[in-house]
């Protein structure tokens, strides 16, 4: 079902934008590209729009959406807390801070390399920090501290990013602003390949750890008694997730709420078993981000909203809804 939805969204993403292309011809153009045929009657200009502008962007949306949703699902499992989201607990801000420092302070010619690495390091340090902070005596993580840590880290990163903006030169400033709102505009072959490989790598790695993650949800001690090397598992998950978030943030900036909303939707329909949750979250994340990006392009034509704005518009009310739903449980903490 989800795969079908993904295909439909891909087609829509190719068709829609400031200039709408006919559905049938767009579909034919994809077939042409795949099989080297010549069915499509689009002119060269329209073909260029598809293959130069919309196709790379579509691919990036798919991989980043999948990556964000995967990282969200695993973060929630790692913290044993359905409200833990890389955006809300500050990991994305940390990665964003790393990326901003790299964009402004490091040479622009190397930025395709330094930005992802710096974003990864920023994400890693914040994840470790938040994990330490939120660890409570009984082995669980405290929601209150998680959210407050997120607020603190976001404020701190915001301040440093502001400072970076202040001292940045024109070129770095342009890049910083473009990327700060979360946009799929910057799709290029490097970012697409990088996110595609990371996405596949993470999916495969997480899948091997899915049974262990299920056991981990019972509690650390319980997982240990089930023969799982808990310390190693935690460290691996933290590092790998920080890589995922780092790559995502460096490619598109901070796109919030996909990582919170998607795993929840999947859990509501399919249950929390990670063996099912992880691949389905990846697929759903891809569809949702693609849809959000289509929305970003068609809401105010010919202008284009940053996709981060659209996901926040959908995601923030959803987060509020979750809070209301869990109010009873949370107020006792």
């Amino acid at each position, binding site marked *: 079902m989800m795969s079908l939805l993904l295909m439909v969204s891909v087609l829509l993403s190719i068709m829609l934008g400031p200039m709408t292309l006919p559905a049938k011809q767009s579909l034919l153009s994809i077939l042409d590209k795949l099989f080297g045929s010549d069915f499509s009657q689009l002119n060269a200009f329209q073909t260029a729009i598809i293959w130069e502008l919309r196709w790379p962007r579509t691919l990036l949306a798919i991989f980043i959406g999948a990556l964000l949703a995967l990282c969200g699902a695993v973060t929630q499992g790692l913290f*044993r*807390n*359905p409200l833990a989201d890389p955006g809300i607990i500050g990991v994305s801000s940390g990665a964003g801070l790393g990326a901003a420092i790299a964009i402004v302070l490091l040479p622009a010619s190397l930025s395709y390399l330094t930005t992802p690495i710096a974003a990864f390091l920023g994400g890693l340090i914040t994840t470790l920090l938040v994990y330490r902070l939120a660890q409570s005596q*009984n*082995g*669980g993580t405290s929601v209150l501290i998680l959210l407050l840590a997120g607020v603190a880290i976001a404020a701190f990163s915001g301040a440093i990013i502001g400072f970076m903006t202040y001292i940045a030169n024109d070129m770095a400033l342009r890049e910083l602003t473009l990327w700060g709102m979360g946009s799929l505009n910057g799709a290029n072959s490097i970012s697409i390949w990088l996110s595609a490989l990371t996405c596949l790598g993470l999916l495969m790695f997480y899948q091997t750890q899915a*049974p*262990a993650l*299920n*056991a981990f*949800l*019972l*509690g650390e*001690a*319980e997982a*240990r*008694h*089930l*023969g*799982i*090397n808990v310390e190693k598992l935690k460290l691996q998950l933290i590092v790998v997730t920080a890589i995922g978030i780092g790559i995502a943030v460096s490619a598109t900036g901070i796109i919030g709420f996909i990582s919170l909303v998607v795993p929840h939707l999947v*859990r509501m329909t399919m*249950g*929390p*078993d990670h063996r099912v949750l992880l691949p389905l979250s990846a697929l759903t994340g891809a569809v949702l981000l693609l849809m959000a990006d289509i929305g970003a392009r068609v809401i105010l034509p010919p202008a284009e909203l940053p996709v981060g704005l659209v996901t926040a518009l959908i995601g923030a009310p959803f987060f509020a809804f979750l809070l209301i739903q869990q109010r009873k*449980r949370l107020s006792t903490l």
Partner: protein
Amino acid sequence: MLFIENLLVTQDHRQILSLPKASLVSGELVAVLGPNGAGKSSLIKTICGEWPANQGQIYLHDKSLQQWSRQQLAKHLGVLPQASQLSFPFKAQEVVAIGATPLSLKRRDIENAVQKWMQATDTWQFADRIYTSLSGGERQRVQLARVLLQLSQAEHAPLLLLDEPTSAQDLGQQHQLLNLVKSLCQQNGFAVISILHDLNQASRYADKVWLLHQGELVAQGSPPQVLQPETVMKIWGYQPELFFNSQGQQILV
């Protein structure tokens, strides 16, 4: 099968638990008794490796616990915690099935084993309900089914640690659960260490009693040997009356 020697656990330079010598053979059910803060939970946590012992050795099947591989140990040592913090909406039977995932059962076998152990713990009727919606006692029995599934993969007699297994159960379930544990000892050779609060339950089901007080093992032996009215007075500060029921089992009121 379990042999404990010179065990000493300290925390912040304060002695929490001292156990010079204790042992357990296959098929035995030991009740750990003692007032609050006597070190009962610490004992469970130390035996299962959650807390490192500062001194001493614990041998399971003549092999020190450190020498066991994680997987092998998981098949032979199971722990039922007092409460679980699971907050994700698993179905009860999915929780039980987690008892098998890191180990080595075939999928068909897992399904059968889940049903078997859920029936044994009287939880099969809510196999499809969401775990977080169950009552405390029901959850605890689901967890017990999970631990028993885990131990059903053992190659030698397994050791089962129970941290207050009856605390959340009603009277009928308490006895049903202890009967189940007892039959696992007698028929499957389980060795069980269980924290209990009810002295008469200990007399009725346990083969041995380990009496803890202020972190020390002050007495061990058969229930009638250990649970004398004067001992109870000394440890709990309550003077009970001693009766005998029709089967000659002693009862403290």
